[in-house]
């Protein structure tokens, strides 16, 4: 296995209550380009988002992290990332294949995947969306979009938790034609 780095970026958030978390959002960044890794770390630091970034440098490592986490814990635990940020051009296992494997595995498919693409054409966007990508950005992601992404992902996990715990409201609240 290659080098894995973890970076904790703690920044005080000023968002509303739904965005407040007690711990940084664990993110798996799958990126082989050292410059892009550093740029992404700096962007998250600037975004104001509180994240814990773990970096792996090829698709095989990414799947190993995700599948090892799956075998020991459910996706809601800290052992698995709450967000995968995935470059498309990766050594060993290519980004689209990593995306396909994540979205086809019922144990980890709930983890949102944001694509970081180096290509600006529409074709890779369409392919990734068809494979189940949750978000798609052309590199580098802006600090504003990074902040929005983290807020959306925190909200997403909050809604899942509340859906899991909720009792459905009476049927009369629905409109049906």
């Amino acid at each position, binding site marked *: 296995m290659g080098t894995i780095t973890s970076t904790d970026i703690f920044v005080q958030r000023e968002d509303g209550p739904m965005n407040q978390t007690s711990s940084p959002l664990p993110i798996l960044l799958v990126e082989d380009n050292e410059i892009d890794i550093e740029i992404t770390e700096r962007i998250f630091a600037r975004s104001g988002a509180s994240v814990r970034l773990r970096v792996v440098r090829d698709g095989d490592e990414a799947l190993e992290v995700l599948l090892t986490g799956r075998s020991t814990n459910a996706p809601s635990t800290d052992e698995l990332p709450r967000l995968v940020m995935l470059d498309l051009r990766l050594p060993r296992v290519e980004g689209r294949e990593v995306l396909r494997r994540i979205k086809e595995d019922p144990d980890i498919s709930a983890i949102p995947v944001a694509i970081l693409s180096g290509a600006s054409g529409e074709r890779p966007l369409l392919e990734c969306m068809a494979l189940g990508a949750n978000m798609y950005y052309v590199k580098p992601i802006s600090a504003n979009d990074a902040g929005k992404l983290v*807020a959306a992902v925190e*909200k997403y996990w909050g809604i899942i938790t509340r859906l899991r715990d909720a009792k459905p409201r009476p049927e009369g609240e629905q409109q049906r*034609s």
Partner: protein
Amino acid sequence: MRLLLIEDNPDDVAIVERLARSSPLPVEVTAHSNGVEALEWLARAEVPPDLVLLDIGLPGTRGTDILKRIKEDDELSEIPVIVVSGSRDDEDILEGVRLGAHSHIVKPIRNCDFAWIVVSVMKAQPRRLALRSMQGRR
């Protein structure tokens, strides 16, 4: 949040309605089993829905034709449409995304799919963000 569900399978309608009733944020579901009827409802609606959830495998009028009509209509084209299919290998998925679908999900719709639908409408607009990001770099 107002959601238009175009789905002919009552079991799948029931799943979405149950998730909507459990949602921490109010979600009002209007369900139509027929695509043409849904288009007529959209044309008459005083307040358009925030999102359309479209079964791409509808019997009769194809789901991709319904999507095309929505995306070609100036008043409706901004409404995000998420296509739903029975299989990840459905060839209509790529066609749906090409025609302007926001994203797609595979049946059965799970908690996580529904949560992402809500988040997408509330905050993030993945497709729009992506396209804007691309346009900025051309």
